């Protein structure tokens, strides 16, 4: 047993230290007694597994490091746990029918509650406007008579284009990527956002020429 040998070695060292320090001659009676006492204090000397004090601490260090690492890993797991892999939300990319379904000059509110977009057809092109107010994220309403989007939370107002003109909203509504799918339907992708203030509304993907 390696453990056994190591243990004995440790005892001898500590016994010497407790005794006269460096005495090359054989142990005196006094030293023998001390040695005995020392080995007793180590934990019964040659007791069973022979885990000396020193090796015990090294094992304890490894154990503590392992425990700390496991705890840190678990906290990381806790963080990751809060971000689900699957969301039970409407898909971010979806089809909204054919261009002929939309009337020129009309704000289409069909997809507002399900997908959070307005489809608006101007004489030249179709664009998908986000229904999320740029102030604090409420859902404005389209007021047909006043030809504006009005947010019920804090009164922000937006033109049909999405440009803000009243209330606390700091910037225009966002537009989403809008393209024609292979089957001729309009495909809206909400993961791609176009912001007016960044000049992104000129991007050809931000509108659909009919």
């Amino acid at each position: 047993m390696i453990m056994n040998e190591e243990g004995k070695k440790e005892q001898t060292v500590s016994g010497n230290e407790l005794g006269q320090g460096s005495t090359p001659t054989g142990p005196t009676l006094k030293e023998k007694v001390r040695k005995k006492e020392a080995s007793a204090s180590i934990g019964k000397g040659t007791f069973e597994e022979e885990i000396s004090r020193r090796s015990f601490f090294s094992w304890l260090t490894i154990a503590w490091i392992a425990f700390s690492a496991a705890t840190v890993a678990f906290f990381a797991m806790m963080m990751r746990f809060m971000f689900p892999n699957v969301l039970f939300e409407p898909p971010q990319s979806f089809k909204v029918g054919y261009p002929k379904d939309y009337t020129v000059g009309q704000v289409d509110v069909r997809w507002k509650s399900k997908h959070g977009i307005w489809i608006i057809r101007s004489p030249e092109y179709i664009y998908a406007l986000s229904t999320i107010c740029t102030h604090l994220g409420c859902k404005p309403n389209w007021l047909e008579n006043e030809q504006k989007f009005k947010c019920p939370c804090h009164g922000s107002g937006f033109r049909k284009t999405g440009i803000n003109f009243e209330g606390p909203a700091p910037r225009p509504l966002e537009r989403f990527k809008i393209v024609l799918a292979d089957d001729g339907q309009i495909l809206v992708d909400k993961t791609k956002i176009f912001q007016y203030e960044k000049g992104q509304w000129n991007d050809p993907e931000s509108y659909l020429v009919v």
Partner: protein
Amino acid sequence: MSDKKKSNIFQRLGESQVWKSIIRSGIPRTRRQRMMSVLNSVFLHLHPVRLPRHAVKVKFTWCMGGLTFFLFLVLTITGILLMFYYRPTVEYAYTDMIDLGEQVPLGIMREIHRWGAHAMVITVWLHMFRVFMTGSYKPPREFNWVVGVILLTLTLLLSFTGYLLPWDQLAIWAVTVGSNMARATPFLGHEGPGAALLALGDINFVNIGSDVKFALLGGRFVGEAALLRFYVLHCIGLPFIVMILMAIHFWRIRKDGGISGPT
């Protein structure tokens, strides 16, 4: 005969084995026995054995800390009762809330919880105001002031999470507005300062699907997942932290020399 006459029902009760097994020091008659009966009770020992005269001066403390704790207990009890009827799902939350007011016996239970919550925010503020005005935050009580500020924040977070649970229009949009503020958290919110720095090439580590607002709502908007998360935080998560901090808060009052008084 005369001995038997003296030992009335209370005395006999006080000397019975049942009583002595629960309250070890028996009926307190001397100062020492009174002290022992306080120290030997898990509930009573939270309170100091002796109080300075000023500690019971309501004019000085307003008893605002005590009232806050009392309201916390009221909210815990009424909250547990509400949990027997309320289901935190989009389908049932609103109707269960109405049901609690109209069909459940003592429909006032939800109102007690709601008004108690409003009152607790007020008493916490007044407690803080009193502590500030009497200078009770000064050494050695600085640490307890810090614990108190965290408790104030947690009280407000408890109000915020409880606000969503009725699941009416006010709740949904108030929490939409409130949680949108989390977007602007430095480094943690995807619109906050520093979030753009946490990117590797085209990949933003802090994006709309990985920021603190997403973690709070469990989704991109206030929906089913947000309701459940707020429910769990409101009923278990936050009260758990609050109770630990309250224990520290009360303990530190004693360790820092008892409740502060006029000096």
